[in-house]
C-alpha cells in the first residue's frame, strides 16, 4: 500500500463544502443562466412531437436524397425511421432526437468560436487542448453528479453533460480544418489586402467546412452515445426505455430501444456524412495545389 503521506480528508471536505456553497448561494442564478438551453430543448422537443410522423420521415428521406441523388441512402433512412415507428418508439425517439439536436446546436455555437480561437493562437491551443483531453476522458458521472446537485435531476444536467461530452471533437476538428487550409491560398488572399476577418469567413471557413462538418457529425454521434446516461438523470427518451428494460430484466424492451438508438445514429451519421462529401466535392479541397 502506498503510505498515507497526507490527510486527504480536509481536501475532500473543502471540495464538497465548496460545491455545497455554490449550490446554496448560486443555484438559482446558475439555473436561470441555463434556462435558455432548457427553452431551446423544450421547443425542439415540442416541435418534433407535434410533427406528424409521415412528415418527419418524408423530410429526412428528402434530405438524404438531396445529399446523395441516389435511392440507397433514402431507403436506409426510411427503413430506420419506420422501424422506430413500428416498435412504438416514435415518441421516445423524438425526445432523444430533440436532446441530440439541442446539444449539437449548442456545441456548434460554442465549439466553432473556440476552434477558431485555437487555430489563431498557439498559446490558446496549448491551454485548451488539455481541457479537451479532460472532457473526453473524465468519466461523465464525475461532472454529472455536481450538475445534478446544482440543477436537480432533469433535462438541464442531461443537456449540459451531453454538451460537455460531445463538444471536444468539433473543437479539435474546427481547429485542424482551419489550420490546414492551403497556405498558398491564404497568402494570395492576404496579398489582395483582405483583413484577417475577411480571410476567416471568405477563405478559411469555407475551405475548412468539410472538416468542420466531420466534427459536427462526430458531435451528433457522441451526443447519441450519451442518451442512456442522460436518461438516468431524467432526460427520458430511448435511453430511458433501455434503462427500464435493464431494471425490469425485460431484455426485449432494452434490445428494441437500443436498436432504435442505432437506427437514429445511422440516419444522422449517414446524412451528415453525405453532406460533408458533397461540400468537399464542390470545393474540391485537396485537388487544387
Amino acid at each position, binding site marked *: 500500500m502506498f503510505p498515507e503521506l497526507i490527510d486527504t480528508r480536509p481536501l475532500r471536505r473543502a471540495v464538497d463544502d465548496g460545491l455545497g456553497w455554490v449550490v446554496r448561494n448560486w443555484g438559482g442564478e446558475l439555473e436561470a443562466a441555463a434556462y435558455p438551453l432548457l427553452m431551446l430543448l423544450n421547443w425542439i422537443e415540442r416541435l418534433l412531437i407535434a410533427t406528424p410522423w409521415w412528415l418527419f420521415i418524408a423530410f429526412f428521406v428528402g434530405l438524404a436524397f438531396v445529399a446523395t441523388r441516389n435511392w440507397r441512402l433514402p431507403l436506409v433512412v426510411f427503413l430506420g425511421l419506420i422501424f422506430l415507428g413500428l416498435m412504438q418508439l416514435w415518441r421516445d425517439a423524438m425526445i432523444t432526437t430533440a436532446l441530440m439536436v439541442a446539444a449539437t446546436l449548442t456545441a456548434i455555437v460554442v465549439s466553432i468560436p473556440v476552434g477558431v480561437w485555437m487555430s489563431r493562437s498557439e498559446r490558446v491551443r496549448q491551454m485548451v487542448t488539455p481541457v479537451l483531453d479532460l472532457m473526453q476522458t473524465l468519466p461523465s458521472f464525475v461532472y454529472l453528479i455536481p450538475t445534478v446537485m446544482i440543477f436537480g435531476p432533469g433535462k438541464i444536467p442531461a443537456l449540459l453533460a451531453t454538451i460537455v461530452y460531445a463538444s471536444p471533437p468539433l473543437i479539435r476538428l474546427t481547429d485542424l480544418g482551419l489550420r490546414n487550409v492551403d497556405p498558398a491560398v491564404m497568402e494570395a488572399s492576404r496579398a489582395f*489586402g483582405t483583413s484577417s476577418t475577411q480571410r476567416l469567413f471568405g477563405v478559411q471557413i*469555407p*475551405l475548412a467546412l468539410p472538416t468542420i462538418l466531420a466534427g459536427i457529425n462526430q458531435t451528433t454521434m457522441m451526443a447519441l452515445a450519451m442518451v442512456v446516461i442522460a436518461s438516468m438523470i431524467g432526460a427520458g427518451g430511448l435511453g430511458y426505455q433501455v434503462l427500464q428494460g435493464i431494471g425490469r430484466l425485460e431484455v426485449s424492451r432494452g434490445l428494441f430501444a437500443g436498436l432504435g438508438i442505432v437506427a437514429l445514429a445511422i440516419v444522422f451519421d449517414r446524412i451528415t456524412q453525405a453532406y460533408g462529401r458533397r461540400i468537399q466535392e464542390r470545393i474540391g479541397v485537396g485537388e*487544387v495545389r
Partner: protein
Amino acid sequence: MTEHGQLHDAAPAAVPDDPAIVMRGVTKIFGPDPEAALALLREGRSKADVQAETGHVVGLDNVSLDIARGQIYVVMGLSGSGKSTLIRHVNRLIEPTAGEIVVNGEKVLDMTMAQLGDFRRNRIAMVFQKFGLLPHRSVIDNVAYGLETRGVGRAERLEKAAHWIGIVGLSGYETSRPRQLSGGQQQRVGLARALAMDTDILLMDEAFSALDPLIRSGMQEQLLELQSSLNKTILFITHDFDEALKIGNRIAVLKDGAVQQVGRPEEIVLNPANAHIEEFVRDVNKARAIHIRTVMEEGAFEPCEMAMPADARCEDVLPCFDQHEWVGVLDGTGRQIGRVRARQVIKALARYAPSNGQA
C-alpha cells in the same frame, strides 16, 4: 516576328528619378533572434556560416534595387536564392530584418496595418507560382476577388472580371471551378485576377514555372503582348535564365540572398560579373539575349527594304536574312540608325561563347 521585336521596344519609358520600387539594404533573417545573425552577416560572413553558427537562415542579404516604371524587371536565381522572399517584401507579406522599401514614393514599412491593406488593395497586384486561386469560387469570382476586397459593386466587378477573362483567353470558363482547369488555364485566371486590379505594379513570383514548356512559352508571349499596351511595372521572378532574357528589360541575379549583378539582358550575357553567372550564361540562347542594336553597323545608310526596332533580338532578325542581305535598325521614332547583316549577328553569337574565350 516583327511584332515580337516591337514588344521590347515599347517597354522602358523609365523616368530615372522616379522609380516605382526602391529597395535599400533590405536584409531578412529567418529565426527567433535575427539581430545576432545580422551582426555576423554585417561582419561579412557568408549565408552558410551564419546558418552553421546561429541556426538562422539568411533570406536576403543587403539587397538594393531600383525598379523603374514601365519595365519588366526580372529577378533570377536558383531555388533557395531568396527570390520569393525578395518579392514578398515589396507588398510586405514579409517584414524585413533591416532596410527600407519605397513603392510609388511611399515607405512601405512605415504604413499602419490599415494603410497596408489599402496599399495592397489599390496599388499592387500579385501572381503566384502555386496560383493561389480560391477553390470554392468560380473562375469569374476568382478574377473579381481583388475588386471585391476593394469594395467594387457586384455588377461592375463581374463586368471587369469578364473583360479580363476574355483578354487572357478563358471566355466560356467563367462559371468553371479552378480545379476543372489545366495548370496553364489556372495561371491565366491568376493573371487575370491580378490584371483586373488595374494597378501600376504587378508582382509575379515564378508565375510560369509550374507550367509545361510550351504553355510557358505561350504565356511569356502573352505577357509581353499585354505589357506592350499596359506599360506596367512588372517585377518578375524566375529561376530560368532563358525566361529572364526573353521577357526582362532588366535582370538582377540573386544568389544566397545577395544581388550578384544587375543589368540589361545583353550586359549580363556579354559581361557576366562572376563565375556563378557565367555558368548560367554558358547554357543560354544568346540569340535571345542580344539586341541587334549592340551588333549593328551604326550610321546613315540607304534605307533597307526590311527594318526592325533596335530592341529586337538577334533571334528575331535571323529569319529575315533569308530574303534580305541587310536589315535596317530603327530607333523609337522609326528613323533608321544603322543596319545589320547575317555575318555580324553570327559573329556576335559566336564571339561570346566562353569556349573560344574573347577571340
